């Protein structure tokens, strides 16, 4: 097993454990922390794939801004432990079996279908920031301007939503 494969399994395991922990935790703050672990593990996987800029942006934007927003909202709203609902015990076990079967089927299909794609040997220059920015500002300039407009709309919307009622 090469070092790359070992690192992949460690990071993939970390991401999977984080995602499962997101589901199993009772307090939203612990779910948020698990999601941060997933994001950092994914950033590591992006580094393994040679996408350095995307990995850094993932940590800065997703891990350092979006998740901080989540953590702030959880703290401000004083979110507590989730209440207990009754999941139907009858549907639980067969449901789980069906989920595992479906997942296994999907995984097997993927494994068989993408065998033909050979990963090209990735050089560092291709995935460099220069290449991405060239593409971003030449081929994708229209979606880029649209996303800036989208962010403006989001900022305005959030400001309007967060206003208190004028009493």
């Amino acid at each position, binding site marked *: 097993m*090469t070092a*790359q494969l070992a690192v992949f399994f460690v990071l*993939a395991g970390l991401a*999977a454990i984080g*995602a499962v922990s*997101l*589901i199993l935790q009772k307090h939203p703050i612990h*779910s*948020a922390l698990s*999601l941060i672990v*997933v*994001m950092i593990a994914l950033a590591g*996987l*992006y580094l393994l*794939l*040679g*996408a350095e800029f995307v990995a850094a*942006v*993932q940590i800065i*934007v*997703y891990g350092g*801004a*979006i998740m901080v*927003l*989540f953590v702030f*909202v*959880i703290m*401000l*709203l004083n*979110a507590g432990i*989730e209440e207990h*609902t009754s999941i139907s015990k009858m549907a639980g076990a067969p449901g789980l079996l069906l989920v595992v079967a479906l*997942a296994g089927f*999907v*995984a097997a299909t*993927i*494994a068989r*279908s*993408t*065998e033909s*794609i050979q*990963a090209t*040997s*990735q050089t560092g220059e*291709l*995935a460099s920031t220069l*290449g*991405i920015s060239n593409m*971003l500002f030449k081929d*994708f300039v229209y*979606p880029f301007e649209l*996303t800036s407009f*989208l*962010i403006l*709309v*989001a900022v305005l*919307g*959030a400001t309007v*939503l*967060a206003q208190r009622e004028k009493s």
Partner: protein
Amino acid sequence: MVPTNYYVILSAILFGLGVFAFIFKRNIITIFMSIELMLNAVNLAFVAFSQALGKLDGQVFVLFVIVVAAAEAAVGLGIIILIARNRQTLNVERVNLLKL
């Protein structure tokens, strides 16, 4: 070299876990976080295929997905704060005024 389908299988697993959390959790914020998990899973598939095909389009698209997720998180959390203020609960089963 790690085969591409390993990454795609991991992406599918994460996406499935996100869907599971979306359906079965009752706290609005946790449901919102599962949406972020699904978006991340899709990002992983994009980057994996970008490396497999040797083109950078996948990574540029990942940047767009991250930006859209940021905008959506801002507005969505604003809505969540409003719901929490007006209904005094974070349990989606309690926000059922439109239920028959």
